């Protein structure tokens, strides 16, 4: 039977990554000096599983690397080794190495061999013995030794075996019959019962073994083969194995422990006649292992990194809810079916009822299907304890990390994309926000700073807050820098909020010393752009000396959008509801024309550029009169414009279909959807639209581009 181990790899990767997360969390929880055996045990178990799985599924390098780690943890678990800061740091580094190796194996790419070797050596030094350094080597080469050893110990003609089980043999689930069966498979077998120790019938305990056997096994059988047969019962029997070749009694001692096992196997010395001419043909198993290894290597070399095929674990309750819902849907469908068979107007109310029910079923089904993709945000949060631990050590700061709302659920895709911005924000807080203990003390604060990550649902959004009780944003410095860079006029007076927003401008970094923790020029503008790509927003609130709070708002899912349907000419367009500030009917007296061309609308104190969607999308319509026309005020990238539309239709959730993958990228349009009547409607990309409109108004793309970048 041939097996493809590949099929189990996906599960192995998944559980191993989880195991590494568990290890990391537990390592960070581990109190140096104290022996918390349960925590160490948890770490040990994860390492142990990764090693076992790695070896089983052909990832030898991972298994070997983890082996040293496991030994270290085993010693800690038994209290033979103290839990030191040094050890914890090394273990954390090892976790990173394994993660790297696993990722490399999964994506068929290369891992950081230097770091792995370095950490591997460090682990071995810590274990402190030459023997350990050599051990992994020996595990690989054993099979060859065994092979030759086996040949050498061949009995050629046969063996005489005296086998007398101890009384308790049956209580270990062992049965002499099994051993006879196995011996029979090796050669020609004769078994004679030795009843000498059989007790009187009245004394007989049926559950105890009380007989002995004299076994003659003829044929070319090796000593190891026989030892294998009795390996499980060596402590529960008296065993004598004699070679019929020379009659010498060999090894009355219990069969060596390592018989079925690996490394030490080659060391067993058995006196038996050596046999000449050993053909060194690797056993089939060895050969296959070699092949496998080669296959993996080849694959790593040739295969290009492919797109990650990801799986998702879904709670059974979610699946049950779905099945339940589909059940209801089927009932509703059959009800409607029945109704349609002989329908007359008297049953109209019934039909309406049914349709309402169908609508509810569909909505619930949709919500539940969406929920399948939802994961708790702890998946994104769980990297931070480690990061804060490492960075606070590096920066000599005392920082307490608080995670709130870890169970708040979020779409998997959104989760994957929000990771980097979050890391950036946390790094920023650690590096620039929170102060060193002495600075904090001078400011009358506790030595330990607090960094808090909080997630919660609000409306159809998820809100993530990153707050610290650090120094807060330095308004003066930000303003000076902005003036220096020409982002703000020299005499301009800005409100606090406006000043804070400046940090999201491209190329803006106030850190005087560029550290390797944050501030390499890739700044908050990138964070903002990433969040914007997810149709989210980011705001900052800060007070000097008290702390800062960044608030990120994201849609729960990227697949569905709350949209406002608007009519422009004969077409229906969809404006994302999040971008709409308000809608109004324009009054003639508030419309102005500047520079003879651009139209603006005076709304309270602000002047809004007017964007005529008709013109932009080439709809034929007389649009000279704007009086009383509908204006939808939208906001994109912090800029507001008014869109002229013919009619406001309904609001509804729409499923986003990519225009880019089905057609091509269209400026000002982020996607498309199919409406209830089957027609296609385009979804407007507000930020892109504003750029388009500016291009049309100014008629020169250069200034548009500059403006576009300037808005970020």
């Amino acid at each position, binding site marked *: *039977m041939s*097996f493809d*181990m590949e*099929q*189990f*790899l996906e*599960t*192995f990767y*998944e*559980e191993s990554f989880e195991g590494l997360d568990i290890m990391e969390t537990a390592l960070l929880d581990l109190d140096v000096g104290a022996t918390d055996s349960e925590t160490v045990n*948890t770490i*040990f*178990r994860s390492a*142990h*599983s990764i*090693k*076992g*799985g790695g*070896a*089983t*599924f052909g990832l030898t390098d991972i*298994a070997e690397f983890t082996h040293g780690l496991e030994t270290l943890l085993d010693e800690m678990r038994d209290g033979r080794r103290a839990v030191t800061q040094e050890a914890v740091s090394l273990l954390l580094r090892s976790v990173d190495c394994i993660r790297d190796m696993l990722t490399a194996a999964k994506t068929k790419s290369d891992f950081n061999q230097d770091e792995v070797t370095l950490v591997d050596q460090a682990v071995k030094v810590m274990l402190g013995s030459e023997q350990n350094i050599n051990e992994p080597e020996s595990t690989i080469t054993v099979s060859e030794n065994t092979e030759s050893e086996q040949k050498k110990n061949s009995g050629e003609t046969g063996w005489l075996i005296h086998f007398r089980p101890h009384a308790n043999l*049956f*209580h*270990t*689930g*062992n049965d002499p*019959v*099994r051993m006879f*069966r*196995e011996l029979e498979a090796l050669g020609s077998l004769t078994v004679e019962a030795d009843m000498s120790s059989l007790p009187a019938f009245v004394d007989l305990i049926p*559950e105890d073994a009380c007989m002995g056997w004299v076994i003659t096994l003829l044929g070319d059988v090796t000593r190891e083969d026989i030892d294998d047969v009795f*390996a*499980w019962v060596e*402590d*529960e029997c008296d065993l004598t194995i004699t070679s019929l070749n020379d009659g010498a009694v060999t090894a009355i001692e219990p069969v060596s*422990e*390592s018989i*079925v*096992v*690996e*490394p*030490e196997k080659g060391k067993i010395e058995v006196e038996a006649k050596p046999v000449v001419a050993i053909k060194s043909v690797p056993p089939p*198993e060895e050969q296959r292992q070699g092949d496998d290894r080669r296959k993996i290597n080849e694959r790593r070399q040739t295969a290009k990194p492919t797109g990650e095929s990801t799986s998702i674990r879904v709670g059974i309750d979610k699946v049950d809810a779905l099945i339940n819902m589909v059940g209801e849907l089927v009932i509703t469908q059959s009800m409607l079916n029945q109704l349609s068979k002989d329908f007359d107007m008297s049953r109209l109310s019934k039909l309406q009822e049914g349709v309402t029910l169908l609508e509810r079923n569909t909505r619930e089904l949709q919500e539940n299907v969406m929920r399948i993709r939802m994961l708790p945000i702890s998946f994104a949060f769980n990297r931070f304890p480690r990061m804060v631990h490492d960075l606070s050590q590096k920066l000599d700061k005392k920082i307490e990390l608080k995670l709130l709302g870890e169970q708040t659920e979020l779409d998997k895709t959104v989760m994957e994309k929000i990771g980097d911005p979050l890391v950036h924000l946390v790094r920023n807080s650690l590096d620039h926000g929170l102060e060193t203990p002495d600075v904090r003390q001078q400011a009358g604060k506790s030595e330990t700073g607090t960094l808090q990550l909080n997630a919660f649902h609000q409306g159809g959004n998820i809100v993530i807050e990153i707050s610290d009780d650090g120094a807060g944003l330095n308004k003066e410095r930000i303003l000076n820098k902005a003036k220096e860079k020409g982002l703000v006029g020299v005499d301009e007076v800005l409100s606090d909020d406006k000043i804070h927003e400046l940090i999201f401008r491209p190329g803006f970094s106030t850190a005087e010393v560029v550290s390797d923790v944050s501030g390499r020029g890739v700044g908050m503008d990138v964070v903002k752009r990433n969040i914007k790509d997810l149709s989210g927003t980011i705001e900052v609130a800060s007070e000097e000396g008290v702390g800062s709070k960044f608030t990120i708002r994201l849609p729960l899912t990227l697949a569905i959008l709350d949209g406002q349907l608007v009519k422009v000419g004969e077409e229906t367009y969809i404006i994302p509801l999040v971008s709409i500030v308000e809608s109004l009917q324009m009054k003639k007296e508030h419309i102005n024309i500047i520079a003879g061309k651009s139209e603006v609308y005076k709304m309270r104190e602000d002047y809004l550029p007017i964007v005529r969607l008709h013109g932009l999308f080439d709809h034929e319509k007389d649009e000279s009169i704007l009086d009383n026309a509908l204006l939808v005020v939208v906001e994109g990238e912090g800029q507001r414009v008014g869109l002229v539309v013919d009619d406001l239709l309904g609001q509804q959730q729409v499923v986003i279909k990519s225009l880019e993958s089905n057609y091509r990228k269209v400026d000002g349009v982020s996607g498309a959807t199919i409406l209830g009547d089957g027609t296609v409607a385009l979804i407007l990309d507000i930020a892109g639209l504003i750029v388009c409109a500016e291009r049309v108004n100014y008629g020169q793309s250069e200034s548009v581009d500059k403006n576009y970048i300037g808005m970020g």
Partner: protein
Amino acid sequence: MAKILTADDSASMRQMVSFTLKGAGYDVVEAVDGMDAFNKAEKEKADLVITDVNMPNLDGIGLVKKLRGLPTYKFTPILLLTTESGKEKKSEGRAAGATGWLVKPFNPDQLLATVKKVLG
């Protein structure tokens, strides 16, 4: 066909063991740790138990001890899946009443050979 109860906290190992045994026609009952296995044992009346050693809640050695306390499992073969090649763990397992062991890493063929050896 014989029924085999297998306990392992690693999903991939469980998957591999189960797939292999089912492929050979055995009935397989999976358990995620020793406690889970023990809870399933009485009802399932397995002909063979294959258990990992290192597991949360109840480890393999603990499971063997507990199972041997059940009349149904007094003589049932119980195999330990172990990476520990050291004498200590094995004699601990044997003292607890384990029938034998299979050393990790093993491949499906080795697993089947061992199972066949025990079940005949």
